[in-house]
C-alpha cells in the first residue's frame, strides 16, 4: 500500500520538496491507526487511517489515501485527496481531489484540481488578490468523457 501511494503521488507530478525547504522523508499513518489532536510535521505524510484535529505540514505534501478519513483543517504545500475529508484544505501550492475523493469543506490554494467523479461540497477560493488574463477556450479533447482531471487550475 505504501508503494502504491508513493507511485500515485509521482503520477500526479507532485512537486518535489526543494533542498532546504523540508525533509524528503515520508511518514505513513496506517489504516488501523486513529489519531486525535494537532499534527505538525516537516516531512511528507500519507494517511490511510483516521485523523481528527488539525494537520500542518507547511513545507510538505499530504496524501489522504482511499481508506483515509480526516476531520481536520489541513495546511500543507501540496494536498492530494483520494479518501474522505471533512474540513478546510489550505494548500500553499496545490490541492488535488482525485476521482475517489470525497471532500466537505472549503479549499484555498493557488492551484486546484478536481478530478471528474469526485464528490465535493463547499467552495473554492480562486485568484486570491490577483486578476489574471482571461482564459483561452478549453479544447474538446481536454474535456470530453473519460478525461482525467489533470486540467489543473493554474493561476499566475
Amino acid at each position, binding site marked *: 500500500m505504501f508503494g502504491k501511494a508513493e507511485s500515485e503521488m509521482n503520477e500526479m507530478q507532485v512537486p518535489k520538496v526543494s533542498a532546504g525547504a523540508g525533509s524528503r522523508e515520508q511518514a505513513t499513518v496506517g489504516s488501523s491507526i486513529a489519531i486525535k489532536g494537532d499534527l505538525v510535521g516537516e516531512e511528507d505524510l500519507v494517511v490511510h487511517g483516521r485523523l481528527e484535529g488539525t494537520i500542518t505540514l507547511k513545507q510538505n505534501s499530504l496524501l489522504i489515501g482511499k481508506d483515509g478519513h480526516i476531520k481536520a483543517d489541513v495546511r500543507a504545500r501540496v494536498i492530494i485527496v483520494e479518501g474522505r475529508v471533512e474540513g478546510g484544505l489550505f494548500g500553499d501550492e496545490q490541492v488535488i481531489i482525485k476521482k475517489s475523493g470525497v471532500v466537505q469543506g472549503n479549499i484555498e490554494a493557488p492551484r486546484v484540481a*478536481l478530478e471528474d467523479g469526485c*464528490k*465535493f461540497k463547499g467552495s473554492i477560493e480562486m485568484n486570491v488578490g490577483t486578476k*489574471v488574463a*482571461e482564459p483561452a477556450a*478549453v479544447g474538446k479533447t481536454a*474535456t470530453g468523457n473519460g478525461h482525467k482531471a*489533470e486540467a489543473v487550475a493554474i493561476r499566475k
Partner: protein
Amino acid sequence: MFRAQGAAARVSASDDNELTYRSPGLQLIFERISSADKVNILDLGPPLSSNVEFLSSYPCRLYIGDWLQWLPLYGDHWGEHPAFSPLFSEMLSLKADDQFDVILGWDMINYLGEENIRRFSRFLAEHTHANALCFFSVATHKEMAAQPAKYRILSKGSLHCEQADCNPCPSPRFTQSRLLELMPEFQSHRSFLLQNGRQEQILRIR
C-alpha cells in the same frame, strides 16, 4: 424577448449524447464575471475539472452544489418530492449570509417539479445579490432526456453538454411567463432560443 440563434447555435454533435454548442447566455454571464472585481459563483452541477479550470482564471469564490448526487435517494419522482427542497440548504452547506453574484443552474429547472421550483426560487432569492444573474437552460422540445446533463464550459461562449444514456421523458416546456410565475422573486434579464431545443434564460432578482 427571444433571440433566435439559429444554425449558428449548433457547433458540433459528437454523438447522440454529447453536444457542443455556442451559448450566448453563458457569454452574458462571463461579461458579468469579467466586469467585477470578484464574484461569488454557485455552480449547481457536479464538480467538473474543466469548469474549475476555466473559472479559476477569474477572481471568484466558486461554490459547487452537486444536487445530482442526491437524486438517487428520491427515486423516480424526486422532482415533486416534498422532502427534496430542504436539501437545498444541505447540499450547499451555505451560511445565512452567503450571497451569490452568478448562479449556474444549467438544466435543473426542467427536472424540479413546479412546487420545488417555487421553493428553490425562494431559497435562491435569500442568497442572491441584487445584481446577480442566474443561468438556466430550459427544454423547449416535447421530449428531453430523463436525467439532467453535465455542462462543461469550453469557452466564455460555448458549452459541451454530456447527457447520460437514458430514455427520453416528456419535457415541461416552461415558457418564460410560466417560469417567472414559478419564480416570482426573479425577472427575465435576457433569453436566447437555440436551435438545439434549449432556451437559455438569464434571470435576475426583482
